């Protein structure tokens, strides 16, 4: 009888019990959603789509200049793709982009000038009016121009650049969903992957690539897609030809994205070392990934050469002389820059600059903590090792790939590590520590709030 009295709902629960209920809430929500998969994916897509819109629309439609991260040339490639034209090596920038840079200026570099509306001679343009967008395969430009046509048809805008920028919300949403799928493939629930994805979406790096015209807008999608293929290959549920396709694809969007198949290969080798997969499967998969990534890169360079109508021009971001110090600086570069830094002079609110820090700490802590604390038979141990190695060595590996490919050094940029971000995020998405959920909730909430304020 006495138990009936203590269990009575009229008696308030003890504080510790209330805390327990609160701490168990993410697990209970995960279990509830797990039993309703379709609804869970629908809600996830809606929520991440909404976050992508909140993040992309204000920056994409803001008055002011074009992005200094080569958007002048990418806007021209987008304009050409909109008219069904390829951007080939040696092509001149057309009138649309020439007017954009004069009429809108360049963010953080120069304001618009009085020449708006006046035809711009080659001499007043960067690289004497020759395109630098030819270094990228046309995949992003044609897909974005296609989505842009739909956007223009349903009214939000009539402008090629604004429509292309708004298409970034779609690439971001798809990338975030692929990232959540990757986390779930490694055993994550729903709350942590969705919070991690929303935090990543609102970070300065993702805003700088998703709200402006750039092939980097597809980095998250390409990286998560490749790593999903690697995950299924490790489990024996993916045919070799699909893995090969996944390895070839990154070079046909943007060459630095080949970091995803390269570190996917490392993940397989570590999985074999930890006896989570057979050596035969790991070595076959790694060979397909490394070979496919290299073949994709070479194939794109050959196609680019065949399509060229002129000599390649020196791109400001292209190789500088080789100095050991540059390689030393590339060591650990992604640890502090992805997803914290945009690598460009974009306006970042104080709230956003502060709120992104806990997300970065959690990403590193989950990966490094996994390396130190997870047992050898834990299936997440190889992912934690691969993620940590990618954070520390990613930029260095890319520099070495460029050195081997063209004999020069390519300086590190945070956006070059975008395709690795889904790998960095897997250990955090699989974390079930209540404190991590709480910190991530606060960090992501504050970041999204900082974007809501811009509306």
């Amino acid at each position, binding site marked *: 009888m006495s138990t009936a009295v203590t269990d009575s709902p009229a008696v308030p629960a003890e504080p510790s019990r209330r805390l327990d209920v609160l701490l168990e809430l993410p697990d209970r929500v995960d279990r509830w959603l797990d039993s309703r998969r379709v609804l869970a994916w629908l809600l996830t897509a809606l929520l991440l789509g909404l976050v992508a819109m909140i993040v992309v629309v204000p920056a994409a439609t803001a*008055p002011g200049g074009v992005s200094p991260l080569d958007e002048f040339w990418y806007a021209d490639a987008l304009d050409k793709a909109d008219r069904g034209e390829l951007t080939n090596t040696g092509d001149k920038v057309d009138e649309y982009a020439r007017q954009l840079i004069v*009429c809108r200026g360049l963010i953080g570099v120069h304001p618009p000038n009085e020449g708006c509306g006046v*035809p711009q*001679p080659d001499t*007043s343009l960067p690289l004497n009016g020759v395109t630098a967008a030819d270094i990228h395969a046309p995949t992003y430009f044609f897909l974005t121009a296609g989505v842009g046509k739909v956007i223009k048809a349903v009214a939000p805008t009539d402008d090629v650049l*604004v429509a292309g920028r708004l298409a970034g919300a779609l690439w971001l949403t798809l990338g975030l969903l692929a990232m959540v799928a990757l986390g779930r493939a490694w055993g994550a629930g729903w709350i942590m992957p969705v919070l991690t994805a929303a935090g990543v979406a609102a970070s300065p790096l993702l805003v700088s690539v998703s709200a402006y015209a750039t092939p980097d807008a597809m980095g998250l999608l390409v990286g998560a897609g490749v790593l999903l293929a690697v995950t299924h290959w490790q489990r024996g549920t993916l045919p070799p030809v699909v893995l090969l396709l996944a390895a070839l694809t990154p070079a046909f969007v943007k060459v630095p994205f080949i970091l995803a198949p390269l570190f996917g290969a490392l993940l397989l080798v570590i999985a074999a070392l930890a006896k989570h997969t057979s050596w035969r499967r790991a070595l076959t998969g790694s060979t397909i990934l490394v070979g496919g990534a290299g073949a994709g890169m070479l194939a794109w360079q050959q196609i680019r050469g065949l399509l060229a109508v002129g000599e390649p021009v020196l791109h400001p971001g292209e190789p500088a002389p080789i100095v050991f110090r540059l390689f030393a600086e590339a060591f650990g570069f992604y640890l502090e820059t992805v997803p914290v830094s945009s690598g460009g002079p974009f306006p970042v609110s104080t709230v956003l600059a502060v709120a992104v820090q806990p997300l970065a700490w959690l990403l590193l802590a989950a990966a490094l903590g996994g390396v130190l604390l997870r047992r050898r038979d834990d299936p997440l141990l190889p992912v934690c090792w691969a993620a940590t190695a990618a954070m520390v060595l990613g930029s260095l590996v890319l520099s070495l790939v460029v050195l081997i490919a063209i004999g020069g050094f390519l300086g590190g940029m945070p956006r070059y590590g975008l395709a690795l971000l889904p790998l960095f995020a897997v250990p955090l998405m699989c974390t079930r520590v209540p404190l991590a959920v709480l910190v991530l909730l606060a960090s992501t909430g504050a970041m999204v709030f900082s974007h809501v304020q811009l509306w």
Partner: protein
Amino acid sequence: MRRTVAAALLGLLLAGCGEPVFAPDAGPGAPGYTKKPTPRPPAVELVRASRAKPLPPGGALDSVVRSDGTFEVTGWALIDTDAPHGVLKLVLPAGVRAKVLKSEAVARPDVVDATGNLSLTWSGFVITVQGSLPEDAGVCLLSQSKQGAFRLDGSDTALCPA
């Protein structure tokens, strides 16, 4: 379900007929954007070195780029963008036979930024000259307009004394 699809399609159709929500505030897609003609380039005269008089500095000669049978002179000068435009006088070393093929006006936002003078937006120029300029030879440029007469910085002082 059918009603929802029909409503969505009608919504999209009506949206397509409406005004754009996100119109850029500047550039080719912006409302009110108009094309304008290029400002007239400055007149260019070739002058013998012996006739060049000492002048105060003003403007700058940025580069002389030689190619087969021609060379290109670029820079900016204190000349008027409105008529009368003023004149650029190109002083070449003795013995160099040359002919001005064309001159172009170039926007120089960097000059406007540096000087704070908006009237210098179109102060830039590119002059294409037919003739062979020896590798070790320089050139001198003088400008004359309502703003005064100046010797462009970077000119060869052996051809036009300061």
